[in-house]
C-alpha cells in the first residue's frame, strides 16, 4: 500500500498541476471574448516577444544552418550523398530545427522575462493593486502576452527557417563548393507547402506555450527574491519540456505515414 501511495502522490500532483494550468489558460483565453481589451499592452508584448527576439533567433538560425550543412556534407560523404546538402538543410530547418530552436530561444528569452516581471509584480503587490484598480490581471497581463506569443512566434519561425537555410547556403556555396544557383534551385524545389505550414503551426503552439508558462509561473510565484527565482526557473523548465513534447506530438500528427 505504501508503494502505491508513493506512486500515486506524484501522479495526483501532476494531474492537479495540469488541471491548474488548463484552468489558467482557459480563463486567459476566455477574455478574448470579453472586453475591455488592452491594445497598448498587446503592442508592447508584440514588440518584446517578436521584434526584440529577432537578433537571437537570427544568430541561432544562421549558425545552426551552417553547422547542419557541414554535418550533412561530412555524414553524407560516407555513402556518397554529399549532393543532398541543400535538400536536407531545408527540410531539417523548416520541419524541425527552425521551430524547435526558435521555441527554445523564446523559452529562454521571453518566458523567463515574463515570469520574472509578473512574479516581481506579485511580490511587490502590483497584482493586488491592479485588482483594486478594477483591472483583471488575466486580461491586462496574461492575454496580451499569450496572444502576442501565439502570433509573433510563427513569424519568428518563418524568419528563422529562411536565415537557417541561408546559413546552410553560405557554408554550402563557400567552403563546400556548391554552385549557388543550383543550391537555391534544389532548396526551393524540394520544399513542399506542408513543410512550411507545419513549421508555422508549430511556432504558434510553441509561442502559446512559452508565454503561457511565463504568465502562469509569474502569477503563482512564491514570496520574495527566492519566489521570483523559483518562478523564473520553473517557467523555463516547463516551457522547454512542453515545447519538446508538443513538437513530438505535432510531428507525429503532421508527418506520420
Amino acid at each position, binding site marked *: 500500500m505504501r508503494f502505491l501511495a508513493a506512486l500515486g502522490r506524484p501522479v495526483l500532483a501532476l494531474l492537479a498541476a495540469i488541471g491548474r494550468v488548463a484552468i489558467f489558460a482557459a480563463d486567459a483565453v476566455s477574455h478574448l471574448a470579453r472586453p*475591455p481589451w*488592452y491594445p497598448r499592452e498587446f503592442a*508592447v508584448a508584440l514588440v518584446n516577444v517578436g521584434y526584440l527576439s529577432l537578433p537571437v533567433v537570427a544568430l541561432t538560425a544562421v549558425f545552426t544552418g551552417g553547422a547542419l550543412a557541414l554535418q550533412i556534407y561530412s555524414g553524407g560523404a560516407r555513402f556518397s550523398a554529399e549532393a543532398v546538402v541543400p535538400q536536407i538543410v531545408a527540410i531539417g530547418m523548416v520541419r524541425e530545427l527552425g521551430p524547435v530552436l526558435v521555441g527554445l530561444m523564446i523559452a529562454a528569452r521571453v518566458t523567463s522575462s515574463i515570469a520574472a516581471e509578473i512574479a*516581481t*509584480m506579485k511580490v*511587490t*503587490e*502590483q497584482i*493586488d*493593486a491592479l*485588482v*483594486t*484598480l*478594477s*483591472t483583471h490581471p488575466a486580461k491586462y497581463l496574461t492575454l496580451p502576452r499569450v496572444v502576442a506569443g501565439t502570433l509573433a512566434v510563427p513569424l519568428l519561425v518563418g524568419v528563422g527557417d529562411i536565415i537557417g537555410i541561408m546559413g546552410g547556403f553560405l557554408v554550402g556555396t563557400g567552403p563546400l563548393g556548391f554552385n549557388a544557383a543550383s543550391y537555391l534551385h534544389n532548396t526551393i524545389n524540394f520544399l513542399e507547402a506542408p513543410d512550411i505550414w507545419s513549421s508555422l503551426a508549430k511556432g504558434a503552439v510553441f509561442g502559446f506555450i512559452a508565454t503561457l508558462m511565463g504568465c502562469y509561473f509569474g502569477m503563482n510565484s512564491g514570496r520574495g527574491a527566492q519566489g521570483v527565482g523559483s518562478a523564473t526557473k520553473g517557467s523555463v523548465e516547463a516551457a522547454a519540456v512542453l515545447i519538446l513534447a508538443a513538437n513530438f506530438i505535432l510531428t507525429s500528427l503532421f508527418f506520420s505515414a
Partner: protein
Amino acid sequence: MIALKDVHKSFGSNQVLRGANLSVGRGESMVVIGGSGTGKSVLLKCILGLIRPDAGTITVDDRDVLKQARDPFLARFGMLFQGGALFDSLPVWQNVSFRLLRGALKRPRDEARSIAIDKLGRVGLGPDVADLYPAELSGGMQKRVGLARAIAADPGIIFFDEPTTGLDPIMAGVINALIREIVVEMGATAVTITHDMSSVRAIADKVAMLHGGKVRWTGPVTEIDHSGDPYLDQFIHGRADGPIASVR
C-alpha cells in the same frame, strides 16, 4: 458602513483571523493596530475581496462584498499599498490616472493627465514628476504617488496599508498629515493599518487593536492611553514585558 462579523481566515494550519468583528462608520477614520503577523493586511484584503474569508460576513453599506459586481464595488475604493505598488512600466502620471485611462471610469488622455497632475499637486509633487518612472523616485515620493493614485478617482473609501513604513520620521509626519487632510477634505471613510503610534494619533478617529485573530479593543483615539486593556497598553508603549509574547 463597513462591517465585519465573525470573520475567519486560515492559510494552511495558520489561523490568521479567528472571529474578527469590526464596524467602521461613514466618514470615519479607523486605524487598525497590532503586531506583525496578526492579520491586519489580511483583514483589509478580505474587505476588498482579494482574499476570500473561510467564514463570517463582510458588508459595505449592508451589502455582502462577495455578492456584488466587482468593478462597481472596487470603483468605490482607493488603496495605498505598503510599498507603493506602483507599476514600474508606466510613468508616474499614468500610475496616478490608471483607473481613468481604462474601464468604466475612462476619460480622454489629456483630461486624465490633467487630473493626475492635479492629484500629484495635492500630495505635494510638482508636474515635473509626472513623466518620471517609479524607479526614479525616492521612497517618500513613491508613497506620495501611491497616495495620489489612491485618491485619483475620488473614492468614498480609502485604505492605507502601513503608510509610513520605511520612511524617516519627518517624511512619515508629512504623509500622516497629508492622509488626515485628504480624508477630512474628501469626507472619505478611511481604514489604516499601522504599527506606527505617531500615525495612529495623527490619522485616527477610532482605533481597533487586532490580537490573536480577533479585534481585542476598539474605541476613540482619545481613549487609547487609558483603556485599561493590558494588551493595548503594552502595544502602544512598546514594552517587551506584558501579555503579548515577544521573542528576544
